[in-house]
């Protein structure tokens, strides 16, 4: 039987801390847009050298984060439509369309004015759309672009090939030369090491936070709450603010774990969530699971900028090499299905989950194309109950609330039924 929609979010201290810190981050963007700030380096989330950008005292700007903020604030559709009017297809990634729409509307958003790029640093980490996205921004902004080519993790080896690591490290050296020319200053290596230390400690804390959901009940929802904790991980990684946020978050989550406090009154089902969330409908989507007492104990989307819970750390003793490994291996998007399946399997087994929920999004073929095979593997090979549902991460037109709720209800009803049968 479905529970009445339970209160499923927490209003902890970290929620306000995040609002405050990200607010300041966006104020810095607006200052840069008004010519009063640092040089703006556009980058992508999925494994990037933000530590280098911080070392040069430049400002990291993330079109993906801007796009998702627009969707959360339900501002993405008009921008998507204006991009489609210009010739972008309904089948192109809506993150890009919303961002291009926003760029061409003088880069004004409700949360900041986004500065023009001084450099488009396209860290090509798995997602092919990244290459198109920044190619288009280069055309509109006429800003210089650097395609930081990160070879796909395509071998069945435990680590990426040495040739690949060397290729990426050498490109990072090229990037440093470029940033030195832009800033007029040489790289302060010790500053970089301190920043790497901050990133390393941040990663350690994030990893601890992630492992807390092995507890029963999980102290927070590793999908809906994790994705809200991601912004500081991307926008503030390598900064004192960023570290402070995760210190607070870790303290808070540990406290909740010690008090056996979960996000729901009763944790009835533990699920692993695969895929990006439907940003324009986070609340409604969350409620579909909360009403069944279903809590996420792990998610892949929260690892899209980096995976730290399996031991990776940014290393101040080998800055460029560890940045390269982060981009090559320790994130979701540069991994092939075999590695992604293994990661999900590890979550199911080591964190203890009852089911896998695959949220397939139309915009993102990197995540979604072929998730039917994922479902096949988990149900047929591993015997893990798996639900595959579809909507979109940015475009509100692809969310059919009633249909989705029916699918979710049917799935958990059947899981509940199975439990009763087993209990008998």
């Amino acid at each position, binding site marked *: 039987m479905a529970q009445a929609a339970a209160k499923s979010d927490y209003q902890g201290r970290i929620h306000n801390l995040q609002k405050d810190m990200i607010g300041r981050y966006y104020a810095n963007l607006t200052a840069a847009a008004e010519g009063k700030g640092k040089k703006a380096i556009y980058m992508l989330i999925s494994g990037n050298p933000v530590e280098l950008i911080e070392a040069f005292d430049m400002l990291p700007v993330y079109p993906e984060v801007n796009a998702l903020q627009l969707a959360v604030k339900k501002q993405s559709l008009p921008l998507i439509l204006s991009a489609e009017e210009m010739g972008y*297809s309904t089948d192109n990634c809506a993150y890009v369309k919303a961002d291009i729409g926003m760029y061409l509307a003088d880069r004004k958003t409700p949360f900041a004015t986004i500065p023009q790029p001084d450099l488009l640093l396209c860290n090509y980490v798995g997602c*092919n759309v990244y290459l198109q996205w920044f190619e288009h921004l280069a055309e509109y902004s006429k800003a210089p672009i650097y395609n930081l080519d990160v070879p796909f993790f395509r071998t069945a080896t435990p680590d990426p090939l040495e040739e690949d690591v060397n290729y990426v490290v050498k490109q990072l050296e090229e990037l440093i030369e470029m940033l030195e020319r832009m800033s007029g200053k040489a790289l302060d290596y010790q500053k970089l090491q301190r920043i790497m230390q901050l990133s390393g400690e941040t990663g350690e804390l994030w990893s601890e936070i992630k492992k807390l959901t092995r507890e029963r009940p999980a102290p927070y929802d590793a999908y809906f709450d994790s994705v809200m904790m991601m912004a500081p991980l991307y926008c503030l990684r390598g900064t004192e603010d960023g570290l402070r946020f995760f210190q607070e978050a870790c303290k808070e989550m540990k406290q909740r774990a010690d008090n056996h406090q979960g996000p729901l009154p009763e944790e009835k089902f533990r699920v692993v969530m695969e895929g990006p969330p439907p940003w324009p409908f986070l609340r409604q989507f969350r409620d579909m699971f909360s009403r069944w007492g279903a809590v996420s104990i792990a998610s892949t989307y929260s690892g899209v900028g980096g995976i730290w819970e399996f031991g990776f750390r940014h290393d101040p003793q080998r800055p460029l090499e560890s940045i390269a490994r982060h981009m090559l291996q320790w994130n979701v998007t540069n991994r092939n299905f075999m590695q992604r399946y293994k990661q999900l399997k590890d979550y199911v087994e080591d964190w203890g989950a009852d089911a896998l929920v695959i949220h397939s999004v139309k915009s993102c073929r990197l995540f979604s194309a072929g998730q*039917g095979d994922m479902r096949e593997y988990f149900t047929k090979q591993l015997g893990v109950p798996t639900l595959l549902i579809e909507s979109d991460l940015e475009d509100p037109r692809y969310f059919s609330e009633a249909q989705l709720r029916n699918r979710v209800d049917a799935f958990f009803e059947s899981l509940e039924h199975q439990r009763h049968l087993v209990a008998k």
Partner: protein
Amino acid sequence: MSGADSCLANAVTKEEAVATTPVLESFKLSEIFDSCREIAQDTEFTVAKRWLEEHPGKKAIGCFPVHCPVELIHASGMLPLGIIGAGNQIEVTYADSRFQSFVCSIVKTTLELGLTSRLKFLDGMLFHSICDPARNLSSVFLRNFPDMFVEYLHFPQNFASPLARKYLESEYRRILDGLQLRSGHAPTADDLNRSIGLYNRIRAGLREIYRIRAVTPHVISAAESFVLTRAGTLMAPEAFLEMLENVLAELPTRPTRPKDRIRVVLEGSFCELPPVGLIETLEQAGCYILDDDFLRGWRWFTEDVPIQANPLAALAESYSERSHYSGTKHDSRETKAAHLIKMVKEKKADAVVMQAAKFCEPALFDYALYRKALDEAKIPHLLLEFEEKTWIFDRARSEAETFVESLLFD
């Protein structure tokens, strides 16, 4: 004598040419093109299988789009075959449960070929970094066909850096190491250069076909050139070279007359193959397709790959320095739109047809920038979305006819 000159000469003595040409000769070209069309639509790979039977012990490797370094496969003693979807020839029953509705057809029909055991005769498949669905497809193949040699080649996208070439050379080395394990033959530099030489001749022949089309488009249609090129990806290169040379020998004396059509450059069809009927529809609607990017990967190089002591370096360098612009190549040194406009001016085309496969992310993204650039350059353009599995071309015909009329009567 250039193709154009010989055609002009023909136009003057056309009556005599038709009267004195033996019937068999004037049918030879149409025989070749008919046979190519059959091969292009054969999802049982009959020609390739026959070759394998005639050469016992030999193996074949499938090449998914866009560009595949086929010389590596050939030099290892194996037959490279273009596995490029199944067009409108098969029903998709199994692959639909693996790939969603918003994924392009070629990914699904290629998987379907695998899931219906039509690819059992292959020893392996090579996939390449062209887009996200194709990359995921390689993972699905890896998991579902464990007996196959499945590899994924990551092409560099950092063209502005000299590092990219060294990287690609080592990537080619890695693929070659895998291939030779499968074939049992480790190619020498001479083996590689022999394969490069052979494919150079094929590519030169195809460039000549395209040159003839651009200058005298009435001599060979885009549909004919398409099935010819496609057939070439489904047979032994030695046999294809012979066929190609026969076609080139016959073309100058082909009795045809120019028609009143608009001249277009076609772009966006570098991966999923359009149905032949669609190409014919465009032509019949009043377009001479002077240039296109059909099977772009198999016509990747703009000139011969140099024969040198280090063949892998020659191939790696040629990948970026002697190649066409393409939807899957993000060379920040010059925009694709600039290349497209240059092509339009070179071929003296009137317009551009952007023929993108449905759901093809790279092509559809390119369209937004092409459209902007073509508008600024005042070059008329038409966007047509297609699916490889279409049978009915009425809508495409009416869109194309409307477009042609708007240009002819402007």
